[in-house]
């Protein structure tokens, strides 16, 4: 901010507001105020946001990492000071006597500040690779704690990363990645080596998923990289879409690289444990350069809760093309080949929920419209491999379960059918079950996994 701007800003503020502003600059973290959110497609709007972090750029200019209250973490970003609105008052954090308390990861800002009882640090969300939620008790006395003041000081002087352990994971640590032809902004924190954090661009090889901080390194690597598709067996091919099956135990490095990459876009995913107990089913689109990874889903080799998907992701550069539905459809095709129903691991992300609901709705309505006689919920489950619970919820969502003349019926509303027709018209690609060449793992094979 130039001096002119600063002075003009100051002149617009009342004395009170000026005081507040100065107070803010001293201790910005966890304060809430209105921030201008700029986006490409919509006009900018002012939203209430919480400051999570501050950093100094180009001496005496500050940038703040903001989290828009009640919006998803992926929209958090660094904003320069001029996007902060000091005219609408600042909500300062309540002075907590237990200053040493560390705040939980994954909880929204509004609850974290007030909840002093959040002594546990939930390092993992529930949607882990291993399906368990591990809560790590934090020993407050032993942890090196930093008061907010100390943090800012450290930032001002050394720009070091030694902040509160928990706060680190709330902040995106990469700005953007360059993968293949695309430049993609990251959404969430991912534990790439700390040295790569906060660099401008991380270069990722499209085929082997190795990551480098310098373009030269990527160039050198590309000369030697021989992978042209995911390192596994192709189990499905139809037109230009293929699915590859990768075993986490056999392709550890590749799967780890994939998990690190996908963690950038999945909040609840955790890389706490290693990739061994998972199979990765990767969807690719083929052209003359090779089979480009579009998305994937991981699946436990042995799921105790009948989950047929652990994590599922379409890479952001390929989102909104209908590939998500293909991934989900393929996961259910595998379940059908295994002869059982399945459901994705909970919790789902918001995007995941919408995709699954759309898929369930489409598939079930598809089946119902094609059915000639009465159906039972079990029939639908048998044909689609969707669990009965998910089927019931979907039917409830579309208002299809009705009670008519003393018995339960399924009634498909006109609007539901219209939506189905619209969706069908948009559907360019489908999964063809007879193009799958795959056998589920046998019990004896599983014993050695």
């Amino acid at each position, binding site marked *: 901010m130039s001096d002119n701007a600063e002075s003009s800003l100051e002149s617009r503020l009342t004395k009170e507001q000026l005081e507040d502003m100065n107070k803010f600059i001293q201790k910005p973290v966890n304060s809430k105020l209105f921030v201008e959110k700029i986006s490409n497609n919509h006009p900018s709007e002012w939203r209430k946001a919480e400051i999570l972090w501050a950093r100094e750029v180009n001496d005496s200019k500050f940038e703040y990492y903001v989290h828009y209250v009640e919006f998803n973490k992926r929209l958090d970003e660094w904003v320069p000071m001029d996007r902060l609105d000091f005219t609408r008052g600042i909500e300062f954090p309540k002075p907590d006597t237990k200053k040493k308390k560390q705040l939980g990861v*994954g909880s929204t800002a509004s609850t974290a500040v007030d909840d002093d009882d959040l002594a546990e640090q939930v390092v993992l969300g529930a949607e882990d690779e291993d399906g368990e939620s591990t809560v790590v008790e934090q020993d407050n006395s032993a942890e090196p704690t930093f008061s907010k003041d100390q943090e800012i000081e450290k930032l001002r002087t050394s720009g070091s990363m030694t902040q509160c352990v928990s706060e680190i994971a709330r902040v995106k640590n990469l700005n953007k990645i360059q993968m293949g032809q695309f430049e993609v902004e990251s959404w969430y924190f991912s534990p790439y080596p700390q040295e*790569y954090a906060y660099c401008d661009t991380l270069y990722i090889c499209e085929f082997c998923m190795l990551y480098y901080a310098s373009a030269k390194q990527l160039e050198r690597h590309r000369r030697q990289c021989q992978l042209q598709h995911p390192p596994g067996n192709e189990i499905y091919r139809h037109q230009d879409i293929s699915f590859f099956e990768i075993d986490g135990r056999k392709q550890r490095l590749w799967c780890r690289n994939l998990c690190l990459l996908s963690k950038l876009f999945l909040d609840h995913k955790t890389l706490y*444990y290693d990739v061994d107990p998972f199979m990765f089913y990767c969807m690719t689109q083929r052209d003359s350069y090779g089979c480009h990874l579009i998305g994937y889903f991981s699946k436990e080799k042995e799921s105790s809760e009948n989950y047929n998907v652990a994590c599922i992701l379409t890479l952001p*550069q390929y989102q909104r093309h209908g590939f998500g539905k293909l991934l989900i459809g393929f996961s259910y095709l595998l379940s059908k080949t295994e002869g059982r129903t399945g459901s994705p691991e909970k919790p789902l*992300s918001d*995007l995941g929920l919408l995709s699954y609901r759309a898929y369930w709705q489409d598939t079930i309505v598809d089946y119902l419209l094609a059915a000639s006689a009465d159906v039972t919920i079990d029939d639908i489950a048998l044909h689609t491999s969707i669990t009965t619970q998910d089927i019931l919820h979907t039917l409830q969502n579309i208002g299809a379960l*009705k009670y008519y003349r003393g018995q*339960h019926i399924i009634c*498909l509303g006109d*609007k539901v059918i219209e939506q189905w027709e619209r969706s069908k018209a948009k559907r360019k690609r489908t999964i063809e079950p007879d193009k799958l060449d795959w056998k589920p793992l046998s019990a004896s094979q599983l014993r050695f996994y």
Partner: protein
Amino acid sequence: MTNMVSRFRVKKLSPKHPLPIYKESQLPDLIDPANIIQRAVPQVETGVEKEEEEEHDLQAAISAAQAAVTTGAKVETYIPTPDASNRIDNKLYTQLYKKKYKEPSTLIRFSSTVEESTGCPYVMDEEDDQFLKSTAMALSEDDFEKLMWEFESIATHQFPHLHVDQSPIPEFEDFLMLVPESSIIHKWTVASQLFEHWRGRRSRRAMKCIIPTLAYEDISKHEIDPYVCFRRRETKPVRKTRRSDQQSLERLRKLRSEMETARNLLEMVLRREKLRKEGLLMEHTVFEKTCRIRDQQRALGIKEDEELTQMLLSKKKRKITLPDSSAGTTIKIPLHRLKRDAFDKLEKSPLQLQIESELAKRRERDADYEDITENPYQPFPRSIPNMFFQPLPSTSSPSPKLRFRRRMGRGGRMFIDRTGHLPPSPHTKFAFDGDSELDESEEEFDMMDDRFLHRQVEALDENDLRSLLTVPFFPNMDPTRKKKPLPADVLLPCP
């Protein structure tokens, strides 16, 4: 609310309940108090974390979806996401990625790992590039990387805790001593120069590897570093009961022994076939030699050896059969030939020979004996003459008509039957004792007469009759019967 409940009592919906499908247009008279259905099916959980569920964008999207099915509003809301639409310059892309992918016609089968498919794990960055360009080292980029990688791997191997204790890296000469013989470092003269560069970079990185690595778990430190990832999982060992333990052990043992047996069998077959081949060759040679001897004998006029000709002849016979059985490397042996061979060639052990000679002698001795050991339970039949009454040789005087015979009775008892003994004359002191029997004349009767038999059979009950079926009837065996003197000429041969 309550009267609604009583009016519309909804049955619980089970997954096996057949549900007719209608379209809304088919049911104009459908009443749908929404809350009734809600009770039949439990409330929908989204499966999203609570805090996330309340986010604006998600709520907006859910409501839009709801609206679409109820009012048909075509509002497609998307949850906004950060930008991913930028692409890099196509020229740059083609520099990095080459258009050389050929799709195989069948599904791909691939199992190489990333490490196998990429080259040297060390890749140069801009700093290295500058260094290389600034010095006059005649080193290609590939070799640069290979050397740097060598330094890195040897250092990690030899000094694994460099970054912990921060001790300085030794000088090149000392370092060289730790370098194995085969390493390429020895081949490059510029290695020492590069070493300095590497050392410098390492120390600037606080002794950590130049290319950053992931933070794996350090078991000693109980840290909650969010950068630590991919911890190893303690595998829960499969709960093995002792029985399944034993079973699997047994199975393994059996498998092993079976495979060993199979292997041994194959080995033995191999040996046997080899021996057969040798044997065949030997026989061939012997035959040749014998032929030659015979020819020579003929030539020299020596009398032909009987043995020799025998050998030739029999050998010839053998020769025809053998080639068939040992043809090729087949393991199959025609069994009947094997048996024949076996009997001819079977060597009898001395013990066996002895036993056989014993048996032969026995047989000779028993030649004029009838072997009736097959019917041990039948008493040996007497020779015919002995079955007739004979006078005792020593006492031929007492009465000329006294005759005796020896008889084997039931249970092996020996009997002596007597005939020809006339009781003293009836006209003795008891002559007038009023026994009417005395006046009776002796009658001869044939016990085998049908009448007698008939009477006897009637007197016996069934059990006795049955027992009599196989046992020959001896009239004298019945102790209750009065012994009637049998006429001498009634000869009842013993069976």
